[in-house]
Protein backbone atom coordinates (compact mmCIF):
# COMPACT_ATOMS: atom_id res chain seq x y z
CA UNK A 1 0.00 0.00 0.00
CA UNK A 2 1.35 3.36 -1.00
CA UNK A 3 -0.65 5.37 1.46
CA UNK A 4 0.39 8.97 1.09
CA UNK A 5 -1.40 9.94 4.23
CA UNK A 6 -3.10 7.08 6.00
CA UNK A 7 -5.63 9.19 7.81
CA UNK A 8 -7.15 10.44 4.56
CA UNK A 9 -9.55 7.90 3.17
CA UNK A 10 -11.04 9.81 0.27
CA UNK A 11 -9.47 12.65 -1.61
CA UNK A 12 -11.16 14.33 -4.54
CA UNK A 13 -9.37 17.19 -6.26
CA UNK A 14 -11.21 19.25 -8.85
CA UNK A 15 -13.16 16.32 -10.16
CA UNK A 16 -15.55 16.82 -13.07
CA UNK A 17 -17.85 14.36 -14.72
CA UNK A 18 -19.93 15.08 -17.77
CA UNK A 19 -22.37 12.62 -19.26
CA UNK A 20 -23.16 12.82 -22.92
CA UNK A 21 -24.51 14.98 -24.41
CA UNK A 22 -23.92 17.82 -21.99
CA UNK A 23 -24.98 16.81 -18.50
CA UNK A 24 -22.53 18.26 -16.01
CA UNK A 25 -23.06 15.79 -13.20
CA UNK A 26 -20.06 17.01 -11.22
CA UNK A 27 -18.13 20.25 -11.66
CA UNK A 28 -14.75 20.82 -10.03
CA UNK A 29 -15.59 18.94 -6.88
CA UNK A 30 -12.90 18.82 -4.21
CA UNK A 31 -13.48 16.85 -1.07
CA UNK A 32 -11.39 15.27 1.63
CA UNK A 33 -12.80 12.61 3.93
CA UNK A 34 -10.71 11.33 6.79
CA UNK A 35 -10.56 7.74 7.89
CA UNK A 36 -13.19 6.93 10.47
CA UNK A 37 -15.41 9.85 9.55
CA UNK A 38 -19.11 9.62 8.91
CA UNK A 39 -20.18 12.10 6.28
CA UNK A 40 -23.56 13.00 4.87
CA UNK A 41 -23.89 13.99 1.26
CA UNK A 42 -27.07 15.79 0.44
CA UNK A 43 -28.55 17.71 -2.42
CA UNK A 44 -31.48 17.81 -4.76
CA UNK A 45 -32.36 14.96 -7.03
CA UNK A 46 -29.98 15.00 -9.96
CA UNK A 47 -27.37 16.99 -8.05
CA UNK A 48 -24.74 14.31 -8.64
CA UNK A 49 -24.68 12.36 -5.38
CA UNK A 50 -24.79 8.94 -6.99
CA UNK A 51 -22.22 10.01 -9.54
CA UNK A 52 -19.85 11.06 -6.78
CA UNK A 53 -20.21 7.77 -4.93
CA UNK A 54 -19.75 5.79 -8.12
CA UNK A 55 -16.51 7.63 -8.81
CA UNK A 56 -15.21 6.46 -5.46
CA UNK A 57 -15.51 2.78 -6.31
CA UNK A 58 -14.60 3.35 -9.92
CA UNK A 59 -18.04 2.40 -11.16
CA UNK A 60 -17.44 5.52 -13.21
CA UNK A 61 -14.31 7.36 -14.25
CA UNK A 62 -13.94 11.13 -13.98
CA UNK A 63 -13.32 13.31 -17.03
CA UNK A 64 -11.05 15.58 -15.07
CA UNK A 65 -9.44 15.68 -11.67
CA UNK A 66 -7.95 13.26 -9.22
CA UNK A 67 -9.76 10.62 -7.21
CA UNK A 68 -7.79 8.99 -4.43
CA UNK A 69 -9.16 6.31 -2.15
CA UNK A 70 -7.04 4.91 0.67
CA UNK A 71 -4.08 6.77 -0.76
CA UNK A 72 -4.40 5.19 -4.19
CA UNK A 73 -5.03 7.07 -7.40
CA UNK A 74 -8.01 5.25 -8.91
CA UNK A 75 -7.10 6.39 -12.38
CA UNK A 76 -3.85 4.49 -12.23
CA UNK A 77 -5.33 1.48 -10.52
CA UNK A 78 -6.36 -1.57 -12.49
CA UNK A 79 -6.43 -5.32 -12.34
CA UNK A 80 -5.81 -6.90 -9.01
CA UNK A 81 -4.99 -3.59 -7.31
CA UNK A 82 -8.43 -2.28 -8.13
CA UNK A 83 -10.05 -5.57 -7.16
CA UNK A 84 -8.36 -5.54 -3.79
CA UNK A 85 -9.40 -1.96 -3.16
CA UNK A 86 -12.98 -2.69 -4.12
CA UNK A 87 -13.10 -5.51 -1.56
CA UNK A 88 -12.36 -2.88 1.07
CA UNK A 89 -15.26 -0.72 -0.12
CA UNK A 90 -18.86 -1.61 0.62
CA UNK A 91 -21.39 0.20 -1.51
CA UNK A 92 -25.14 0.08 -1.03
CA UNK A 93 -26.52 1.09 -4.40
CA UNK A 94 -29.55 3.26 -4.91
CA UNK A 95 -30.93 0.60 -7.25
CA UNK A 96 -29.76 -2.13 -4.83
CA UNK A 97 -28.12 -4.29 -7.51
CA UNK A 98 -29.35 -7.48 -5.92
CA UNK A 99 -29.50 -10.76 -7.80
CA UNK A 100 -33.23 -11.44 -7.80
CA UNK A 101 -32.99 -15.19 -8.27
CA UNK A 102 -30.37 -15.70 -5.58
CA UNK A 103 -31.46 -16.06 -2.00
CA UNK A 104 -31.02 -13.26 0.49
CA UNK A 105 -28.17 -15.17 2.13
CA UNK A 106 -26.42 -15.75 -1.20
CA UNK A 107 -26.69 -12.08 -2.07
CA UNK A 108 -25.06 -11.04 1.15
CA UNK A 109 -22.48 -13.83 1.00
CA UNK A 110 -21.29 -12.69 -2.43
CA UNK A 111 -19.43 -9.71 -0.97
CA UNK A 112 -17.55 -12.02 1.35
CA UNK A 113 -17.02 -14.83 -1.15
CA UNK A 114 -15.17 -12.58 -3.56
CA UNK A 115 -12.83 -11.80 -0.67
CA UNK A 116 -12.36 -15.53 -0.02
CA UNK A 117 -13.71 -15.44 3.50
CA UNK A 118 -14.18 -18.68 5.40
CA UNK A 119 -17.52 -20.46 5.09
CA UNK A 120 -18.09 -20.30 8.82
CA UNK A 121 -17.37 -16.58 8.88
CA UNK A 122 -19.75 -15.97 5.99
CA UNK A 123 -22.57 -17.90 7.59
CA UNK A 124 -22.15 -16.27 10.96
CA UNK A 125 -21.86 -12.77 9.53
CA UNK A 126 -24.89 -13.21 7.27
CA UNK A 127 -27.07 -14.35 10.16
CA UNK A 128 -25.82 -11.58 12.37
CA UNK A 129 -26.61 -8.87 9.81
CA UNK A 130 -30.05 -10.28 9.04
CA UNK A 131 -30.72 -10.46 12.74
CA UNK A 132 -29.82 -6.81 13.22
CA UNK A 133 -31.94 -5.71 10.26
CA UNK A 134 -34.86 -7.88 11.42
CA UNK A 135 -34.79 -10.01 8.31
CA UNK A 136 -33.70 -13.30 9.86
CA UNK A 137 -36.77 -15.09 8.53
CA UNK A 138 -35.88 -14.13 4.94
CA UNK A 139 -32.57 -16.01 4.95
CA UNK A 140 -33.48 -18.41 2.14
CA UNK A 141 -35.97 -16.24 0.25
CA UNK A 142 -35.07 -15.20 -3.30
CA UNK A 143 -34.18 -11.52 -3.19
CA UNK A 144 -36.61 -10.77 -6.03
CA UNK A 145 -39.56 -11.69 -3.84
CA UNK A 146 -38.83 -9.11 -1.16
CA UNK A 147 -40.45 -5.72 -0.74
CA UNK A 148 -38.51 -2.62 -1.73
CA UNK A 149 -37.69 -1.80 1.86
CA UNK A 150 -36.49 -5.32 2.52
CA UNK A 151 -34.36 -5.28 -0.62
CA UNK A 152 -32.87 -2.01 0.48
CA UNK A 153 -31.83 -3.50 3.79
CA UNK A 154 -30.30 -6.50 2.01
CA UNK A 155 -28.20 -4.22 -0.15
CA UNK A 156 -27.02 -2.44 3.00
CA UNK A 157 -26.23 -5.77 4.63
CA UNK A 158 -24.17 -6.77 1.60
CA UNK A 159 -22.29 -3.47 1.68
CA UNK A 160 -21.35 -3.99 5.32
CA UNK A 161 -20.79 -7.76 5.19
CA UNK A 162 -17.09 -7.81 4.48
CA UNK A 163 -16.23 -5.28 7.22
CA UNK A 164 -15.25 -2.63 4.67
CA UNK A 165 -12.95 0.27 5.47
CA UNK A 166 -15.08 2.55 3.35
CA UNK A 167 -18.87 2.37 3.28
CA UNK A 168 -20.73 4.18 0.52
CA UNK A 169 -24.48 4.26 1.09
CA UNK A 170 -26.63 5.74 -1.65
CA UNK A 171 -29.99 6.78 -0.28
CA UNK A 172 -29.97 3.92 2.24
CA UNK A 173 -33.22 4.83 3.94
CA UNK A 174 -35.32 5.91 0.96
CA UNK A 175 -37.84 3.13 1.36
CA UNK A 176 -37.74 2.71 5.10
CA UNK A 177 -40.00 3.75 7.91
CA UNK A 178 -38.76 5.64 10.92
CA UNK A 179 -38.14 2.59 13.05
CA UNK A 180 -36.28 0.63 10.42
CA UNK A 181 -34.27 3.70 9.53
CA UNK A 182 -33.10 3.77 13.12
CA UNK A 183 -31.99 0.15 12.83
CA UNK A 184 -29.95 0.93 9.73
CA UNK A 185 -28.39 4.02 11.26
CA UNK A 186 -27.44 2.01 14.34
CA UNK A 187 -25.67 -0.42 12.09
CA UNK A 188 -23.78 2.39 10.36
CA UNK A 189 -22.82 3.84 13.71
CA UNK A 190 -21.55 0.46 14.79
CA UNK A 191 -19.23 0.45 11.80
CA UNK A 192 -18.20 4.00 12.45
CA UNK A 193 -17.10 2.90 15.91
CA UNK A 194 -15.20 0.04 14.32
CA UNK A 195 -13.23 2.72 12.47
CA UNK A 196 -14.85 2.54 9.05
CA UNK A 197 -15.26 5.62 6.92
CA UNK A 198 -18.89 6.10 5.99
CA UNK A 199 -20.37 8.34 3.31
CA UNK A 200 -24.14 8.50 3.17
CA UNK A 201 -25.96 10.18 0.31
CA UNK A 202 -29.44 11.15 1.39
CA UNK A 203 -32.36 13.55 1.07
CA UNK A 204 -33.51 12.71 4.54
CA UNK A 205 -32.48 15.66 6.70
CA UNK A 206 -33.52 13.83 9.84
CA UNK A 207 -30.57 11.49 9.44
CA UNK A 208 -28.09 14.25 10.18
CA UNK A 209 -30.25 16.62 12.14
CA UNK A 210 -28.50 15.78 15.40
CA UNK A 211 -25.52 17.72 14.07
CA UNK A 212 -22.85 15.31 15.15
CA UNK A 213 -21.53 14.71 11.66
CA UNK A 214 -20.23 16.68 8.74
CA UNK A 215 -22.77 17.40 6.05
CA UNK A 216 -21.94 18.56 2.54
CA UNK A 217 -24.37 19.60 -0.12
CA UNK A 218 -24.17 19.17 -3.86
CA UNK A 219 -25.98 21.70 -5.98
CA UNK A 220 -26.11 20.98 -9.68
CA UNK A 221 -22.85 19.11 -9.50
CA UNK A 222 -21.09 21.72 -7.39
CA UNK A 223 -20.06 21.30 -3.83
CA UNK A 224 -20.88 23.92 -1.31
CA UNK A 225 -20.90 23.81 2.42
CA UNK A 226 -24.50 24.24 3.50
CA UNK A 227 -25.23 27.04 5.91
CA UNK A 228 -27.31 24.82 8.02
CA UNK A 229 -27.35 24.83 11.72
CA UNK A 230 -25.76 21.70 13.06
CA UNK A 231 -23.11 21.65 10.45
CA UNK A 232 -19.86 20.77 12.05
CA UNK A 233 -16.66 21.88 10.51
CA UNK A 234 -13.14 20.64 10.38
CA UNK A 235 -12.95 20.98 14.13
CA UNK A 236 -15.08 18.02 15.05
CA UNK A 237 -13.37 16.07 12.35
CA UNK A 238 -10.04 16.30 14.03
CA UNK A 239 -11.56 15.37 17.32
CA UNK A 240 -12.82 12.18 15.79
CA UNK A 241 -9.49 11.45 14.33
CA UNK A 242 -7.83 11.87 17.66
CA UNK A 243 -10.25 9.48 19.25
CA UNK A 244 -9.10 6.64 17.00
Amino acid at each position, binding site marked *: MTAKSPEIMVDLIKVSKTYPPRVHALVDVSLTVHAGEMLFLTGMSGAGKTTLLRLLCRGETPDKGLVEVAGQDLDRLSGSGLQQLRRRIGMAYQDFKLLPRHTVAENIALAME*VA*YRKRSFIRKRTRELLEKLRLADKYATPAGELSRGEQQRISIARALANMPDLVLADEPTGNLDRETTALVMDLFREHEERGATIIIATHDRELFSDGSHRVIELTAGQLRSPEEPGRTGEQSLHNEEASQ
Partner: protein
Amino acid sequence: MNFLRAIVGQTLRNLRQTWSSQLVTLLTISLSVLIFSFFFLVYINVLNAGRQLGDNLRLIVYLDEEPSKPLQEEYRQKILKFDRVEKIEFVSSQQAYERFRKQLGHDQDVLEGMPRDFLPPSIEVYPIRSLSSLTRIKRFSDYLQTLPGVLKVQYGREWIDRFYSFVKLMRVVVILSGMLLILTTTFMVAHTIRLTLCSRERELELLRLLGASNHYIRAPFFLEGALQGLAGSVCGLVALYVFFDWIRLRFAGSAMLNLFPFTFFPVPVILAIVAASTLLCASGSFSSTRRILRL
Protein backbone atom coordinates in the same frame (compact mmCIF):
# COMPACT_ATOMS: atom_id res chain seq x y z
CA MET B 1 -9.72 -23.85 0.07
CA ASN B 2 -12.21 -21.00 0.39
CA PHE B 3 -11.45 -20.12 -3.18
CA LEU B 4 -12.17 -23.66 -4.33
CA ARG B 5 -15.43 -23.82 -2.40
CA ALA B 6 -16.59 -20.53 -3.83
CA ILE B 7 -15.68 -21.60 -7.35
CA VAL B 8 -17.38 -24.97 -7.11
CA GLY B 9 -20.48 -23.38 -5.60
CA GLN B 10 -20.59 -20.82 -8.37
CA THR B 11 -20.17 -23.50 -11.03
CA LEU B 12 -22.99 -25.60 -9.65
CA ARG B 13 -25.20 -22.53 -9.55
CA ASN B 14 -24.37 -21.85 -13.22
CA LEU B 15 -25.17 -25.39 -14.22
CA ARG B 16 -28.46 -25.25 -12.37
CA GLN B 17 -29.50 -22.00 -13.96
CA THR B 18 -28.73 -22.90 -17.57
CA TRP B 19 -29.30 -26.63 -17.40
CA SER B 20 -31.26 -26.91 -20.65
CA SER B 21 -28.53 -25.46 -22.84
CA GLN B 22 -25.99 -27.37 -20.78
CA LEU B 23 -27.84 -30.55 -21.65
CA VAL B 24 -27.77 -29.76 -25.36
CA THR B 25 -24.06 -29.11 -25.18
CA LEU B 26 -23.49 -32.30 -23.27
CA LEU B 27 -25.40 -34.23 -25.91
CA THR B 28 -23.42 -32.64 -28.71
CA ILE B 29 -20.12 -33.41 -27.06
CA SER B 30 -21.18 -36.97 -26.32
CA LEU B 31 -22.25 -37.45 -29.90
CA SER B 32 -19.02 -36.03 -31.30
CA VAL B 33 -16.96 -38.19 -28.98
CA LEU B 34 -19.08 -41.18 -29.96
CA ILE B 35 -18.58 -40.56 -33.68
CA PHE B 36 -14.88 -39.96 -33.35
CA SER B 37 -14.20 -42.88 -31.05
CA PHE B 38 -16.32 -45.19 -33.20
CA PHE B 39 -14.16 -44.53 -36.25
CA PHE B 40 -11.05 -44.62 -34.15
CA LEU B 41 -12.04 -47.99 -32.72
CA VAL B 42 -12.71 -49.40 -36.16
CA TYR B 43 -9.40 -48.02 -37.34
CA ILE B 44 -7.48 -49.57 -34.46
CA ASN B 45 -9.11 -52.93 -35.01
CA VAL B 46 -8.45 -52.83 -38.71
CA LEU B 47 -4.83 -52.07 -37.98
CA ASN B 48 -4.69 -54.99 -35.58
CA ALA B 49 -6.20 -57.24 -38.18
CA GLY B 50 -3.68 -55.97 -40.70
CA ARG B 51 -0.85 -56.76 -38.35
CA GLN B 52 -2.17 -60.26 -37.94
CA LEU B 53 -2.44 -60.73 -41.66
CA GLY B 54 1.07 -59.42 -41.95
CA ASP B 55 2.24 -62.35 -39.90
CA ASN B 56 1.40 -64.67 -42.73
CA LEU B 57 2.39 -62.27 -45.42
CA ARG B 58 5.32 -63.08 -47.64
CA LEU B 59 6.50 -62.38 -51.15
CA ILE B 60 7.36 -65.46 -53.10
CA VAL B 61 9.96 -64.85 -55.76
CA TYR B 62 10.10 -67.69 -58.29
CA LEU B 63 13.49 -68.22 -59.93
CA ASP B 64 14.23 -69.84 -63.22
CA GLU B 65 17.04 -71.97 -61.80
CA GLU B 66 18.49 -73.15 -58.53
CA PRO B 67 20.71 -70.34 -57.16
CA SER B 68 24.19 -71.26 -56.08
CA LYS B 69 25.44 -70.20 -52.65
CA PRO B 70 27.21 -67.04 -53.88
CA LEU B 71 24.22 -66.18 -56.01
CA GLN B 72 21.97 -66.60 -52.96
CA GLU B 73 24.18 -64.12 -51.16
CA GLU B 74 23.90 -61.72 -54.08
CA TYR B 75 20.11 -61.98 -54.03
CA ARG B 76 20.10 -61.35 -50.30
CA GLN B 77 22.19 -58.20 -50.74
CA LYS B 78 19.94 -56.92 -53.48
CA ILE B 79 16.78 -57.54 -51.52
CA LEU B 80 18.18 -55.84 -48.45
CA LYS B 81 19.14 -52.88 -50.59
CA PHE B 82 15.48 -52.10 -51.09
CA ASP B 83 14.24 -52.51 -47.55
CA ARG B 84 14.97 -54.20 -44.30
CA VAL B 85 13.05 -57.44 -44.07
CA GLU B 86 12.06 -59.81 -41.35
CA LYS B 87 13.42 -62.94 -42.95
CA ILE B 88 14.67 -64.27 -46.28
CA GLU B 89 14.34 -67.96 -46.98
CA PHE B 90 15.57 -69.87 -49.98
CA VAL B 91 13.42 -72.78 -51.04
CA SER B 92 14.96 -75.22 -53.49
CA SER B 93 12.71 -77.05 -55.88
CA GLN B 94 13.37 -80.19 -53.85
CA GLN B 95 12.09 -78.49 -50.67
CA ALA B 96 9.11 -77.12 -52.53
CA TYR B 97 8.25 -80.62 -53.69
CA GLU B 98 8.44 -81.95 -50.13
CA ARG B 99 6.25 -79.19 -48.83
CA PHE B 100 3.69 -79.71 -51.52
CA ARG B 101 3.65 -83.44 -50.83
CA LYS B 102 2.99 -82.84 -47.16
CA GLN B 103 0.20 -80.40 -47.96
CA LEU B 104 -1.47 -82.97 -50.18
CA GLY B 105 -1.52 -85.51 -47.35
CA HIS B 106 -3.55 -88.51 -48.46
CA ASP B 107 -3.69 -87.39 -52.02
CA GLN B 108 0.05 -87.77 -52.44
CA ASP B 109 -0.43 -90.26 -55.19
CA VAL B 110 -1.21 -87.52 -57.71
CA LEU B 111 2.48 -86.68 -57.60
CA GLU B 112 3.23 -90.20 -58.82
CA GLY B 113 5.38 -90.02 -61.90
CA MET B 114 6.07 -86.30 -61.64
CA PRO B 115 9.73 -85.24 -61.76
CA ARG B 116 10.92 -84.16 -58.31
CA ASP B 117 11.99 -80.75 -59.60
CA PHE B 118 8.83 -79.76 -61.42
CA LEU B 119 8.30 -76.89 -58.98
CA PRO B 120 10.59 -73.89 -59.52
CA PRO B 121 12.98 -72.84 -56.75
CA SER B 122 11.99 -69.66 -54.93
CA ILE B 123 12.97 -67.06 -52.42
CA GLU B 124 10.45 -66.30 -49.68
CA VAL B 125 10.72 -62.75 -48.43
CA TYR B 126 8.96 -61.84 -45.18
CA PRO B 127 8.60 -58.07 -45.00
CA ILE B 128 8.82 -56.27 -41.67
CA ARG B 129 5.39 -56.16 -40.10
CA SER B 130 4.98 -52.43 -39.96
CA LEU B 131 2.34 -50.52 -41.76
CA SER B 132 4.78 -48.43 -43.72
CA SER B 133 6.67 -51.39 -45.11
CA LEU B 134 3.42 -53.20 -45.80
CA THR B 135 2.03 -50.31 -47.76
CA ARG B 136 5.14 -50.37 -49.94
CA ILE B 137 4.70 -54.00 -50.74
CA LYS B 138 3.61 -53.34 -54.30
CA ARG B 139 6.75 -51.36 -55.04
CA PHE B 140 8.79 -54.06 -53.31
CA SER B 141 7.26 -56.65 -55.55
CA ASP B 142 7.94 -54.54 -58.64
CA TYR B 143 11.55 -54.19 -57.54
CA LEU B 144 11.99 -57.91 -57.00
CA GLN B 145 10.57 -58.52 -60.44
CA THR B 146 13.52 -56.64 -61.95
CA LEU B 147 16.15 -58.88 -60.35
CA PRO B 148 17.90 -61.20 -62.82
CA GLY B 149 16.62 -64.71 -63.05
CA VAL B 150 13.24 -63.92 -61.52
CA LEU B 151 10.30 -65.60 -63.18
CA LYS B 152 7.47 -64.16 -61.20
CA VAL B 153 6.71 -62.50 -57.86
CA GLN B 154 3.62 -63.50 -55.99
CA TYR B 155 1.75 -62.18 -52.98
CA GLY B 156 -1.89 -61.63 -52.05
CA ARG B 157 -1.75 -58.58 -54.26
CA GLU B 158 -5.36 -57.72 -54.86
CA TRP B 159 -6.34 -58.35 -51.33
CA ILE B 160 -3.50 -56.43 -49.73
CA ASP B 161 -3.87 -53.45 -51.99
CA ARG B 162 -7.53 -53.23 -51.19
CA PHE B 163 -6.91 -53.67 -47.51
CA TYR B 164 -4.40 -50.89 -47.36
CA SER B 165 -6.44 -48.45 -49.35
CA PHE B 166 -9.15 -49.17 -46.80
CA VAL B 167 -6.73 -48.45 -44.00
CA LYS B 168 -5.78 -45.17 -45.65
CA LEU B 169 -9.43 -44.23 -46.05
CA MET B 170 -10.05 -45.05 -42.42
CA ARG B 171 -7.18 -42.86 -41.42
CA VAL B 172 -8.71 -39.93 -43.30
CA VAL B 173 -12.10 -40.62 -41.71
CA VAL B 174 -10.57 -40.72 -38.24
CA ILE B 175 -8.74 -37.46 -38.80
CA LEU B 176 -11.87 -35.80 -40.19
CA SER B 177 -14.05 -36.98 -37.32
CA GLY B 178 -11.36 -35.84 -34.91
CA MET B 179 -11.51 -32.40 -36.45
CA LEU B 180 -15.28 -32.49 -36.28
CA LEU B 181 -14.97 -33.35 -32.62
CA ILE B 182 -12.67 -30.42 -31.99
CA LEU B 183 -14.87 -28.01 -33.94
CA THR B 184 -18.19 -29.03 -32.42
CA THR B 185 -16.95 -29.21 -28.87
CA THR B 186 -15.18 -25.90 -28.89
CA PHE B 187 -18.02 -24.25 -30.77
CA MET B 188 -20.76 -25.67 -28.58
CA VAL B 189 -18.90 -25.00 -25.38
CA ALA B 190 -18.13 -21.46 -26.45
CA HIS B 191 -21.79 -21.08 -27.39
CA THR B 192 -23.19 -22.22 -24.05
CA ILE B 193 -20.62 -20.19 -22.20
CA ARG B 194 -21.79 -17.19 -24.18
CA LEU B 195 -25.37 -17.94 -23.19
CA THR B 196 -24.33 -18.23 -19.57
CA LEU B 197 -22.40 -15.01 -19.82
CA CYS B 198 -25.40 -13.19 -21.27
CA SER B 199 -27.78 -14.55 -18.67
CA ARG B 200 -25.34 -13.57 -15.96
CA GLU B 201 -24.23 -10.23 -17.32
CA ARG B 202 -25.65 -8.28 -14.40
CA GLU B 203 -24.19 -10.70 -11.96
CA LEU B 204 -20.73 -10.51 -13.52
CA GLU B 205 -20.91 -6.72 -13.51
CA LEU B 206 -21.81 -6.84 -9.83
CA LEU B 207 -18.98 -9.26 -9.12
CA ARG B 208 -16.57 -6.82 -10.65
CA LEU B 209 -17.96 -3.98 -8.56
CA LEU B 210 -17.55 -6.13 -5.47
CA GLY B 211 -13.90 -6.63 -6.33
CA ALA B 212 -13.96 -10.23 -7.49
CA SER B 213 -10.66 -11.35 -8.94
CA ASN B 214 -10.38 -12.47 -12.55
CA HIS B 215 -9.82 -15.99 -11.32
CA TYR B 216 -12.95 -15.86 -9.24
CA ILE B 217 -14.95 -14.76 -12.26
CA ARG B 218 -13.36 -17.04 -14.82
CA ALA B 219 -12.62 -20.21 -12.91
CA PRO B 220 -16.28 -21.31 -12.78
CA PHE B 221 -16.45 -21.09 -16.56
CA PHE B 222 -13.26 -23.08 -16.87
CA LEU B 223 -14.64 -25.67 -14.50
CA GLU B 224 -17.94 -25.70 -16.32
CA GLY B 225 -16.19 -26.42 -19.61
CA ALA B 226 -14.04 -29.10 -18.04
CA LEU B 227 -17.09 -30.78 -16.52
CA GLN B 228 -18.85 -30.65 -19.87
CA GLY B 229 -15.88 -32.25 -21.59
CA LEU B 230 -15.47 -34.86 -18.91
CA ALA B 231 -19.13 -35.83 -18.73
CA GLY B 232 -19.55 -35.63 -22.51
CA SER B 233 -16.60 -37.85 -23.31
CA VAL B 234 -17.51 -40.37 -20.63
CA CYS B 235 -21.08 -40.53 -21.96
CA GLY B 236 -19.84 -40.91 -25.53
CA LEU B 237 -17.42 -43.68 -24.61
CA VAL B 238 -20.00 -45.50 -22.52
CA ALA B 239 -22.42 -45.35 -25.43
CA LEU B 240 -19.73 -46.71 -27.72
CA TYR B 241 -18.96 -49.51 -25.31
CA VAL B 242 -22.61 -50.48 -25.10
CA PHE B 243 -22.76 -50.52 -28.89
CA PHE B 244 -19.51 -52.49 -29.05
CA ASP B 245 -20.79 -55.04 -26.59
CA TRP B 246 -24.01 -55.42 -28.52
CA ILE B 247 -22.09 -56.05 -31.75
CA ARG B 248 -19.92 -58.60 -30.03
CA LEU B 249 -22.88 -60.49 -28.64
CA ARG B 250 -24.89 -60.17 -31.81
CA PHE B 251 -22.14 -61.54 -34.01
CA ALA B 252 -20.60 -63.92 -31.49
CA GLY B 253 -19.30 -67.01 -33.26
CA SER B 254 -19.48 -65.47 -36.73
CA ALA B 255 -16.50 -66.16 -38.96
CA MET B 256 -15.45 -62.53 -39.18
CA LEU B 257 -15.17 -62.06 -35.43
CA ASN B 258 -13.40 -65.38 -34.99
CA LEU B 259 -10.83 -64.41 -37.55
CA PHE B 260 -10.05 -61.05 -36.05
CA PRO B 261 -10.42 -60.46 -32.33
CA PHE B 262 -12.49 -57.28 -32.05
CA THR B 263 -11.22 -55.37 -29.03
CA PHE B 264 -12.23 -52.18 -27.22
CA PHE B 265 -9.79 -49.36 -26.51
CA PRO B 266 -7.09 -50.12 -23.98
CA VAL B 267 -7.34 -48.08 -20.78
CA PRO B 268 -4.62 -45.53 -21.70
CA VAL B 269 -6.45 -44.68 -24.92
CA ILE B 270 -9.72 -44.23 -23.03
CA LEU B 271 -7.99 -41.95 -20.55
CA ALA B 272 -6.38 -40.01 -23.36
CA ILE B 273 -9.71 -39.43 -25.11
CA VAL B 274 -11.35 -38.29 -21.87
CA ALA B 275 -8.41 -36.05 -20.96
CA ALA B 276 -8.23 -34.54 -24.42
CA SER B 277 -11.90 -33.63 -24.59
CA THR B 278 -11.88 -32.31 -21.03
CA LEU B 279 -8.95 -30.10 -21.83
CA LEU B 280 -10.47 -29.06 -25.13
CA CYS B 281 -13.75 -27.95 -23.56
CA ALA B 282 -12.08 -26.27 -20.61
CA SER B 283 -9.76 -24.25 -22.79
CA GLY B 284 -12.59 -23.48 -25.19
CA SER B 285 -14.72 -21.99 -22.45
CA PHE B 286 -11.76 -20.25 -20.87
CA SER B 287 -10.78 -18.50 -24.07
CA SER B 288 -14.35 -17.48 -24.82
CA THR B 289 -14.58 -15.79 -21.43
CA ARG B 290 -11.39 -13.91 -22.17
CA ARG B 291 -12.94 -12.37 -25.23
CA ILE B 292 -16.24 -11.55 -23.60
CA LEU B 293 -14.98 -10.32 -20.26
CA ARG B 294 -12.36 -8.23 -22.07
CA LEU B 295 -9.73 -9.27 -19.60
